[in-house]
């Protein structure tokens, strides 16, 4: 057999003969490439490799040599015997590879659209893979944009609702007042009439009686006189005289008595002070809703500034679209204005938006239709669509083209029934059958190698929660392009990026049922659990796969419960599981990207976290409703339900606000159990409950209270049952479930998306149209825009200011607006703040209202004190403050800002602790507080697990040296906006910036005391607009650099006075841009405005609470807690922003929770505190309340070992980065 084999082997290529050609010397060789290669073209002969015989080449070339038929038969025979597959290249002809120009069997490469050989193709695929992973990384990094936007959307939702609730409250209030006034007046008038009637009547009766008496007297007198005043009777003279007198008197009386009334004409008349018609008219139109229309979208200049960043995306997108269109890919009936939504394949029916919105809130439909029509959010895209036609059509790079082609060509990953993200058109890779197949293959370990480029992006999936594609413009242009390209690719079809989309898609589908009808049913069917188990399990496995090893434990730990459920109730349980994957992804974005897919735990954490600081308003409410709903519809039995509901609920993309969560759970489950699975019945209690409480609020508490409850109801609703939210909202929420019960849970896997997407929709509408109605939403938009600016690294300050100025003309003139404060509030107030202020403004206008006086006063003060700087700051940071805590806080922050002060004055109004700020002063604050605490607890679960797993070094950066990427005693460290690592390379007197993978990006600074020079800098911080703030230790000053590392300003000198430093060390900045400096040798913390203006200080030398000894590092949590590593007191103290001590933890020692000269301190966005316990050479992690969570690390220079810790920071993915000083490196955990 061996020999047989060798007989069939061409001695040149050592391969099986392919098309053997027989030379005259009887030796055979493959025609290509062997014989081909033997040709001596000069002499037109071929030399036999075996016998060296030379043969003339036939006229037709080597092809002309006869084929060795015998050999070929043998080959066939052999193939038969051995059962080999026929040579795949049998029928093919060799060609020159277009890349390496080797002769080979070429195939079309989707990457470059050339015929290339296998090797080149493999290389190209590798390139694609790498590109994908690179883009994936970018997406990962960019995803927090989406998260931000998501949170903005959520906040906008809340604000919208709050605003509307407030307005509705006002309307109700006015109505009540009008009614009362009307009634009072009516009653009064009626009383008057009655009283008058009675008096007059009495008088008349009296008169009548008297007259009658007189009459009878006179009558009798007359009679008597007639009868007896004659001679028959003897009268004495006196008697006669008297009688005569009497009669004379009577005559007199009769003559004189004159009752001057024939008829009774003393009439009472009802006179209107105003023309009744007029009055009715007035009342009938006693108010209207004024929706402020920020001109943001129409102002071309503004826009171009605000959107510079993302425009490229749009351009690319539109360009892509155009190309698509050119290919006749889409319908041509696209209206002029109908640039499609980004990434959408076909223009959705226009009515879609109207429908969804009006369905959701009937009340709006009225004016919605007036205000809305063209001003949809797409207008932006339309713009780019139209404008950019000319300019950059040919800007597509090779890669873009390639990718496109790939997409066009194969659309391998395209699936009809994958649900697509409503915004980007990206669908989940995991929905794509091909991808599924691949994954399946991989799972079964069969074809590991043969993956196509598509699968690699899989890990990305959590990330691309492309809810608002444009904003992804976060990084450099090229990256944007990358992203957009990817997006496009996805959208286009070829790939399958898009996990989270699915859910939303379902909703979307329902709306767009016309365009997307086909997919929907399929999807629905499958997800309906019509035993599409393969899909389900696939997704599940995939998800599992996706989880990084670190997180795996959690995932598996949690999973069982889900799968238990699922085993019990296959169909029903499927929903949660898919859900989880769905929300995994979506949250992936939301959770500011952990490097890998999130475990459910993370998700949960994420959401609870999300919910925590922003007492997310009505969303919560709806979330609650929704949460119940799915369960009930699923018709699962109680036990499973419970699990499910909580499971589902906790990871819904909509912000389940943590505070209320427990309550929700309870109420949900209980109501479930009672009502047993009908949606309506579920819905009812809620709405019933509300009117009641509303009534109660109205009647019992009095108008003011009612109002305030109104405002807060969103937050506390579930707990307090005082949920007056305006009827509008009720009806809206009520209508949601009704609107589509059948399909909604039919696509059960995607129900969450529905609410994922809903807010989004709302946001879109609100940010564009409705925005304009609500001053707050509008400022939100400003914020958004601003952020874009910031990210664009443009001089956003100008824009910010400019925007603010430009907006002046289209100030919202609210019906009740009278005072400038209201005006300003409307402009700059945000979130609840805005509505609160608007409330106060209205109360101000309607003087009779009992409104909180201070509020109005403050507002006015604001207006007065609002310097341009403050305005600038506000427009710049105010929005950001909003971002953080969209509650009353933001209003107060903005107020504060307007005063140019941090939190001081405003804080008197509300508690300084933002966590409970909302609650403070509210009648129901205790509940709120507990809710907040509960939220904390809930939030605790996941980062906790994440942190519990932390100990393994991910990587470390640097070694001793002064080259880029090396350190000499690195001290401070901070995380920049793009998750960059900013390291204060202290003894190299420079700042180094690394990307999140530890790749050196840039450095700036050198030794010296001039501008931009350092002397052993220590602390470093990056504010939200990317400016670097450096504690220049031995120069006793703070320096600020722009995001490019150019010197902006410096402030401070050595000394002990305000604004002077003695070896400033740690530094940080809060969301409002205030700078906190650990003034180490002055044993205090100083606070500055971002321009360096001294604002305040706290701490003095000592070891008592609130005192500091060598404070080293400082951090500010998202809840405005200021954490200071009080190094020589071996503790961490927690202050509020005013410098009041809230708590302190740790004492000297090396047990858990004890410190030895703690240095770096950092806090993540969920409040977990990470402390670089320098003396113990370990990192300790604490719960937000300061209780110990875990510690890791020891002395040494190996991985995960430290020698003298310095600054520490937490990246947005949860990675802990720490400066390992004596090892001259940065370690990442």
């Amino acid at each position, binding site marked *: 057999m061996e020999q047989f084999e060798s007989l069939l082997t061409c*001695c*040149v290529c*050592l391969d099986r003969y392919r098309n053997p050609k027989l030379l005259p010397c009887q030796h055979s060789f493959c025609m290509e490439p062997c014989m081909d*290669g033997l040709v001596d073209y000069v002499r037109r002969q071929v030399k*036999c*490799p075996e016998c*060296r015989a030379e043969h003339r080449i036939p006229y037709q070339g080597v092809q002309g040599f006869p084929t060795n038929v015998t050999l070929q038969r043998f080959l066939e025979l052999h193939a038969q015997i051995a059962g080999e597959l026929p040579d795949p290249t049998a029928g093919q002809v060799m060609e020159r590879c277009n890349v390496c120009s080797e002769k080979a069997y070429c195939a079309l490469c989707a990457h470059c659209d050339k015929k290339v*050989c296998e090797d*080149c193709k493999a290389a190209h695929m590798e390139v694609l893979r790498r590109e994908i992973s690179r883009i994936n990384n970018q997406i990962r990094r960019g995803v927090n944009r989406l998260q931000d936007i998501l949170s903005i959307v959520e906040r906008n939702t809340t604000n919208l609702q709050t605003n509307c609730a407030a307005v509705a409250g006002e309307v109700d209030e006015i109505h009540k007042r009008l009614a009362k006034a009307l009634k009072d007046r009516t009653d009064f008038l009626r009383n008057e009439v009655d009283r008058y009637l009675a008096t007059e009547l009495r008088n008349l009766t009296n008169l009548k009686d008297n007259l009658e008496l007189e009459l009878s007297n006179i009558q009798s007198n007359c009679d008597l006189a007639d009868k007896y005043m004659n001679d028959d009777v003897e009268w004495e003279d006196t008697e006669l005289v008297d009688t005569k007198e009497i009669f004379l008197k009577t005559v007199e009386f009769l003559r004189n008595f004159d009752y001057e009334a024939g008829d009774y004409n003393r009439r009472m008349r009802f006179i209107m002070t105003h023309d009744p018609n007029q009055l009715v008219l007035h009342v009938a139109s006693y108010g209207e809703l004024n929706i402020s229309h920020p001109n943001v979208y129409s102002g071309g200049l503004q826009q171009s500034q605000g959107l510079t960043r993302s425009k490229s995306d749009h351009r690319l997108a539109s360009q892509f679209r155009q190309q698509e269109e050119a290919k006749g890919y889409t319908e041509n009936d696209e209206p002029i204005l109908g640039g499609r939504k980004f990434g959408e394949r076909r223009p959705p029916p226009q009515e879609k938006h109207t429908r969804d919105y009006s369905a959701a809130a009937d009340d709006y439909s009225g004016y919605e239709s007036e205000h809305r029509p063209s001003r949809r959010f797409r207008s932006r895209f339309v713009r780019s669509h139209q404008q950019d036609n000319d300019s950059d059509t040919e800007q597509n790079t090779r890669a873009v083209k390639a990718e496109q082609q790939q997409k066009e060509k194969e659309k391998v990953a395209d699936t009809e029934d994958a649900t697509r993200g409503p915004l980007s058109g990206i669908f989940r890779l995991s929905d794509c059958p091909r991808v599924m197949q691949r994954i399946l293959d991989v799972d079964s370990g069969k074809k590991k190698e043969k993956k196509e480029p598509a699968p690699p992006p899989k890990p990305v999936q959590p990330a691309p929660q492309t809810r608002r594609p444009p904003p992804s413009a976060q990084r450099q242009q090229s990256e944007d392009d990358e992203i957009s390209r990817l997006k496009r690719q996805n959208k286009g079809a070829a790939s399958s990026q898009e996990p989270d989309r699915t859910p939303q898609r379902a909703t979307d589908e329902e709306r767009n049922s016309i365009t997307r009808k086909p997919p929907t049913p399929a999807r629905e069917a499958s997800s309906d659990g019509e035993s599409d188990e393969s899909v389900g399990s696939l997704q599940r496995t995939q998800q599992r796969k996706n989880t990084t090893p670190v997180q795996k434990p959690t995932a598996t730990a949690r999973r069982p419960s889900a799968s238990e459920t699922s085993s019990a109730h296959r169909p029903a349980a499927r929903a949660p599981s898919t859900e989880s994957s769905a929300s995994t992804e979506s949250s992936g974005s939301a959770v500011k990207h952990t490097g890998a897919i999130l475990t459910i735990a993370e998700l949960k954490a994420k959401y609870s976290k999300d919910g925590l600081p922003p007492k997310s308003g009505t969303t919560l409410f709806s979330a609650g409703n929704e949460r119940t709903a799915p369960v009930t519809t699923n018709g699962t039995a109680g036990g499973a339900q419970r699990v499910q509901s909580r499971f589902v609920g906790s990871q819904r993309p909509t912000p389940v606000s943590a505070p209320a969560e427990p309550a929700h759970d309870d109420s949900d489950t209980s109501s479930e159990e009672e009502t047993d699975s009908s949606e309506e019945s579920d819905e009812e209690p809620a709405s019933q409950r509300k009117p009641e409480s509303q009534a109660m609020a109205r009647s019992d508490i009095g108008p003011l209270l009612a109002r305030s409850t109104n405002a807060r109801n969103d937050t506390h609703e579930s707990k307090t049952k005082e949920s007056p939210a305006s009827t509008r909202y009720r009806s809206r929420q009520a209508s949601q479930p009704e609107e589509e019960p059948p399909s909604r849970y039919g696509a059960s896997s995607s129900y969450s998306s529905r609410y994922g997407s809903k807010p989004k929709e709302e946001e879109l509408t609100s940010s564009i149209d409705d925005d304009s109605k609500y001053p707050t939403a509008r400022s939100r938009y400003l914020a958004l825009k601003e952020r874009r600016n910031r990210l664009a690294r443009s001089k956003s300050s100008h824009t910010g200011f400019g925007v603010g100025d430009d907006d002046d003309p289209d100030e919202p003139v609210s019906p009740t607006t009278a005072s400038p404060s209201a005006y300003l509030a409307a402009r700059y107030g945000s979130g609840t703040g805005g509505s609160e202020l608007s409330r106060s403004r209205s109360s101000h206008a309607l003087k009779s209202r009992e409104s909180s006086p201070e509020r109005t006063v403050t507002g006015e003060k604001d207006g007065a004190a609002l310097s341009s700087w403050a305005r600038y700051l506000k427009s710049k940071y105010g929005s950001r403050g909003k971002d953080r805590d969209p509650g009353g806080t933001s209003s107060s922050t903005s107020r504060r800002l307007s005063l140019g002060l941090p939190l001081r004055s405003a804080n008197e109004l509300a508690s300084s602790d933002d966590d409970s700020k909302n609650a403070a002063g509210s009648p129901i604050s205790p509940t709120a507080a507990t809710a907040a605490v509960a939220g904390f607890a809930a939030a605790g679960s996941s980062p906790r697990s994440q942190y519990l797993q932390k100990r393994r070094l991910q990587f470390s950066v640097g070694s001793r040296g002064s080259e880029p990427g090396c350190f000499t005693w690195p001290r401070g460290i901070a995380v920049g906006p793009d998750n960059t690592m900013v390291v204060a390379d202290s003894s190299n007197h420079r700042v180094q910036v690394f990307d999140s993978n530890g790749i050196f990006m840039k450095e700036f600074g050198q030794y010296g005391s001039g501008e931009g020079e350092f002397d052993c800098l220590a602390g470093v911080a990056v504010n939200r607009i990317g400016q670097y703030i450096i504690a220049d230790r031995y120069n006793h000053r703070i320096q600020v650099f722009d995001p490019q590392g150019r010197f902006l300003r410096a402030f401070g000198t050595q000394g002990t006075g305000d604004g002077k430093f003695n070896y400033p060390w740690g530094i940080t900045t809060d969301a409002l841009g205030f700078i906190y400096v650990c003034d180490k040798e002055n044993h205090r913390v100083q606070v500055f405005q971002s321009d360096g203006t001294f604002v305040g200080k706290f701490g003095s030398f000592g070891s008592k609470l609130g005192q500091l000894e060598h404070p080293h590092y400082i951090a500010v949590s998202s809840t405005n807690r200021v954490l200071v590593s009080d190094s020589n007191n071996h503790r961490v103290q927690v202050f509020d922003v005013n410098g009041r001590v809230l708590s302190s933890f740790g004492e000297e020692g090396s047990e858990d929770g004890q410190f030895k000269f703690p240095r770096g301190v950092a806090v993540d966005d969920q409040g977990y505190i990470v402390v670089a316990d320098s003396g113990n050479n370990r990192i300790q992690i604490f719960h937000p309340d300061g209780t110990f969570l875990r510690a890791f690390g020891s002395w040494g220079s190996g991985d995960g070992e430290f020698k003298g810790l310095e600054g520490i920071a937490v990246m947005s993915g949860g990675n802990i980065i720490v400066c390992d000083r004596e090892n001259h490196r940065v370690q990442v955990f």
Partner: protein
Amino acid sequence: MAALPRRIIKETQRLMQEPVPGISAVPSETNARYFHVIVTGPEDSPFEGGLFKLELFLPEDYPMSAPKVRFITKIYHPNIDRLGRICLDILKDKWSPALQIRTVLLSIQALLSAPNPDDPLANDVAELWKVNEIEAIRNAKEWTRRYAMDN
């Protein structure tokens, strides 16, 4: 650099799996076309007992052109010069694509047992070989002992 042709891969595999007795050829870790070769001196030749290092490089158009082979170990041989270059027809004009690495190395081994002083490369050696074969062989043995055995 373009990917390795299948033929080279096959040859390399075969060399590894079925090594030729007395010959070892190992591809370089950094360049699959470069082989470290060790050839044992054939029995009954003045080179017996020696281990001769060679380097072998497969040019770009291999197998259409011959591999480049060179002795690294110094050897006293009329057809191998001081630089280790080999005068062997199959490495030159008589190359055939049907030849392989192993056959080339076998040929080289054979060349060691049968020096051909009539087609010399190292003229002085060839001269001595022709004039005084005994001394030449002694020299060869001496060189072998000195250069090819001491490791």
